[in-house]
């Protein structure tokens, strides 16, 4: 751990340069540039809002914010893991010529996804105000699921990026898996309608983080907005730690083998 901190300090400049690059490259050749970070989740939100209120007539209170909670978490998760997956592969021409710690490439993708998330988050807060949701001090607690998500996303990124180097098939499998997971994350419906079966949804870490947001922002199942239980906090952290531990283990074991497969 101390070693990592030391190597991180030494490579701080490289890290900021990598983040800058990843962020700039994303919006190269677009007219609206960074504005897309905010615009694209908003457009997704708009589409979902129209589809699910006019065609499916959802009766969930504060439905726009309900959707937004799901979308914002989901968009961050899918961007960070998709970007993380290809982080090593895309930079293979660099680490096969220069001796740099490879995890920096992954971290930098995650940071640029986090920056995107933060910008959307500001819009999210504005939407809360517009929709008449009171912003309570409890909102500060949102930092907790965000922190868990960061760790979780890095962990999944470590796993995927290593797998992607060995099996290119992973990208197709992951995109299918993401679609499945999105539908299981209850972004636009309320799993409480399934009764006790709702507990099964908690097996999905992304749903756990989304639900945390809803707990704090609009309250779930008629309960007033507030903090979820202590066990719930442990569950959220547990997923993050497990994902990170597995990812770190794989990275540590495979780190020196990547070079042979790029």
């Amino acid at each position, binding site marked *: 751990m101390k070693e990592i901190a030391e190597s991180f300090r*030494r*490579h701080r*400049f*490289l890290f*900021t*340069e*990598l983040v*800058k*690059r990843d962020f*700039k*490259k994303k919006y*190269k050749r677009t007219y609206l540039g960074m504005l897309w970070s905010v615009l694209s989740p908003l457009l997704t939100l708009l589409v979902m809002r129209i589809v699910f209120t006019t065609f499916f007539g959802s009766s969930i209170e504060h439905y726009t914010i309900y959707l937004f909670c799901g979308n914002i978490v989901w968009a961050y998760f899918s961007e960070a893991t998709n970007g993380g997956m290809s982080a090593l592969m895309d930079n293979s*021409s*660099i*680490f*096969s*010529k*220069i*001796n*740099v710690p490879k995890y920096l490439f992954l971290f930098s993708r995650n940071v640029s996804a986090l920056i995107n998330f933060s910008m959307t988050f500001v819009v999210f807060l504005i939407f809360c105000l517009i929709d008449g949701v009171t912003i309570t001090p409890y909102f500060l607690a949102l930092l907790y699921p965000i922190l868990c998500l960061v760790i979780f996303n890095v962990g999944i990124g470590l796993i995927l990026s290593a797998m992607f180097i*060995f*099996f*290119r*098939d*992973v990208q197709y499998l992951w995109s299918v898996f993401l679609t499945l997971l999105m539908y299981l994350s209850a972004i636009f419906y309320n799993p409480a309608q399934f009764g006790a079966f709702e507990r099964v949804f908690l097996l999905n870490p992304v749903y756990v983080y989304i639900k945390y947001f809803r707990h704090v922002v609009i309250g779930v199942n008629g309960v007033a907005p507030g903090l979820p239980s202590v066990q719930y906090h442990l569950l959220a952290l547990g997923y993050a730690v497990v994902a990170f531990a597995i990812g770190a283990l794989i990275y540590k074991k495979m780190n*020196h083998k990547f*070079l*042979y*497969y790029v």
Partner: protein
Amino acid sequence: MEEKAVQSESPILSLDGVSIRYMTGDFKEIGIKEFIIRKLTRNYHVNEFWADKDITFSIYRGDMLGIIGTNGAGKSTLLKAISGIMVPTEGTVTREGKIAALLELASGFDGEMTVRENTYLRGAMLGYTKKFMDDTYEEIIRFAELEEFQDRPFKHLSSGMKSRLAFSIASLVEPDILILDEVLSVGDGAFRKKSEAKMKSIIRGGATTILVSHSIAQVRSMCNKILWIDHGKQVTFGSDVKKICDAYEKFLSDKVLPTDL
């Protein structure tokens, strides 16, 4: 082994039985489906290929080592092990001090980014600090003669310009060990002269240098130790530059490895 008796200080770089193995025909080439099928039918084989086998040598401060061998002898792979990019399958590499490897210079840049952005990024990769880059950026661009191209996308540069930039950034380090892989042939005639002068001043500064070159004349004139590898195996290592170079030139014409070294 006779060098050891003369030199009392410890080697700045030493390789002990370094071997590097590549696997071929394993799952990276056949995909996940084939991999599982072959695993299940017990038909999964890998072939191993030793790019380098049992390389052992030590060099000391101020040495200039020339590595010679035909194409595919394992020179570049060995340099990757020396610079720490690759961890050897067997054996150990011990190095003292900062190492700068100028390997395949022009690769690893990002075509979409500007020359300026690429310069900073590359500097960061080579371990320079932000302050150092701010201070020396102008100098780098001037040395590479790319003043007018600073804010153009990197992909607009000609390949000569790309290598010039790469060389200019990399040659600013003051390393303890400098690895040169065919870099003395960068750019056009005028730039080549400039880069050779720069290299020589680094070498004069006391750096230990490793040179990989196909120009045997260059190796003769610059190096005081020679490592000859052929098909991954160490043919010889020693300080009798003339004798080894003569034997190597003879080998190039008659393709028979000498037995008397």
